[in-house]
């Protein structure tokens, strides 16, 4: 079933035309990787699915982004609700400078949920899902900033899971982490795709090949090729895709 749909999407930062006529469909409960050299527009495109570009001065878009059959850039769409449904994990782990517990319950608290029992259950469930529970269950009141980088990133994933989104956007979630933490994040992504639709931007092509079902290659604001990951990495149809994945540029 199709979950996300981009229909003739163009995006601009001022006069800078950063995305050109992007059409793409993403299936439910799958992992899709966006690859391409820096500045190709893949992060901009990712951030359109939860409208994180709204705050950037001079940002403008054309075309439609459709999630579950609904156009998300319509006036009546509440962007706060959209972001509860479409969670986001950032490149640099950015936990709030508060306790581990406070980090996980933040999304619920801003929705007005105060019941301590409910919150405690959600904290445990989310941390288990994010494979962090065993490491932090005795120190939930410790500052999130005392965790290692990899733990912080898994905490950020737990925080996102706590509000029960159906889509998770990840913007190079492992690029600031060491190899062991990276493999933990990758395992986590693999286990999450049963219940979530995951879109991940990555600079690491092995990572894209390992974890994604489908891969989209962006270059200079255009979607060059979009195919099953296996096919794209073994038999790229476009010459530029081939040059990029074999490391001839980028």
């Amino acid at each position, binding site marked *: 079933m199709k979950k996300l749909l981009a229909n003739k999407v163009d995006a601009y930062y001022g006069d800078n035309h950063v995305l050109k006529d992007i059409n793409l469909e993403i299936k439910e409960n799958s992992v899709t990787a966006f690859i391409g050299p820096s500045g190709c527009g893949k992060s901009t495109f990712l951030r359109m699915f*939860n409208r*994180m570009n709204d*705050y950037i*001065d001079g940002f403008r878009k054309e075309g439609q982004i459709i999630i579950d059959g609904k156009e998300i850039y319509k006036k009546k769409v509440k962007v*706060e*609700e*959209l*972001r*509860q449904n479409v*969670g*986001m994990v*950032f490149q*640099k782990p*950015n*936990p*709030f*400078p508060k306790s581990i517990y406070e980090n996980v319950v*933040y*999304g619920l*608290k*801003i*929705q007005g949920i105060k019941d301590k029992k409910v919150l405690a259950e959600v904290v445990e469930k989310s941390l288990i899902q994010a494979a962090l529970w065993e490491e932090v269950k005795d120190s939930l009141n410790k500052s999130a*900033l005392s965790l290692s980088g990899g733990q912080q990133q898994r905490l*950020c994933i737990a*925080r*996102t899971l706590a*509000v029960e989104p159906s889509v998770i956007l990840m913007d190079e979630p492992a690029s600031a982490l060491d190899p062991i933490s990276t493999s933990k994040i990758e395992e986590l992504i693999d286990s999450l795709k049963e219940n979530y639709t995951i879109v991940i931007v990555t600079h690491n092509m092995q990572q894209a090949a390992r974890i994604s079902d489908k891969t989209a290659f962006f270059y200079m604001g255009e979607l060059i090729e979009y195919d099953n990951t296996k096919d794209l990495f073994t038999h790229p149809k476009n010459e530029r895709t081939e040059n990029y994945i074999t490391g001839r540029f980028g």
Partner: protein
Amino acid sequence: MSKIKSNRLKDNAFKYFGIFCTFIGLVMLAIFIGNILIEGLGRIDYDFLTNLPSRKAAKAGILTAWTGTAWILGLTAIIAIPLGVAAGVYLEEYGKKNRLASIVEINIANLAGVPSIIYGLLGLEIFVRILNFGGSLLAGAFTLALLILPIIIVATREALKAVPDSLRQASYGMGATKWQTIQYQILPAASGGILTGIILALSRAIGETAPLIVIGALAYVPFVAKTPMDEFTVLPMQIFNWVSRPQHEFVINAAAGIIILLLITFILNGIAVYLRNKWQKKVNW
């Protein structure tokens, strides 16, 4: 070779010149404080703090003056903090960054440099006359609040600028509104910097005399203010009044008053420095 020698010489010359300049400032301050302490320290006792002003120097106290200063400090804080912080938050977090914004920004910075007597005239016209507060604590507090508003706004903006954007993104990404993000994440993260600015602004306010003279604060107030509408005096005014008397006993009173005023400012500045250090240590992104 001679070039190197002369360069060395210049280098040393500047070093000693710098030491000399620093020395002048410090020595002046030391002489001033030492002199004040010698003159006034012996005069400070319980009676000095609890006596009303008097024509007889030995019986005169600063009760009305320091309670007036405390009133002014409290009222000014109540008025200036919400206005200044809210304006700073608006300009930094909500306002668009366009030409109008930069004009506003430059003018707020300019306001911080306007001589305080001008604020006194403004207060006299608006609060004393138009709003009919008279020469009351309230008129004084509003005037001083206007005076320190630019300082608080600028300090708030600087503190907000120091909060990393990743924190805002994390909060928005969780579905928080702008106000929730400001309330739960940004203000707590910036609170140390904002608080430092507020305290420094308040310690400036309690030293101000000129604007209060203009709005009609009295030098001789034989009662302790009970409501914000009462007439008042403040420590600097009391000191000014005593210094201008011919009898030496009153000059001693002035020295003792100065010690108390300095003590209050030093305590406030000390708190500000402490908070700033604590905040800088805590925020390690």
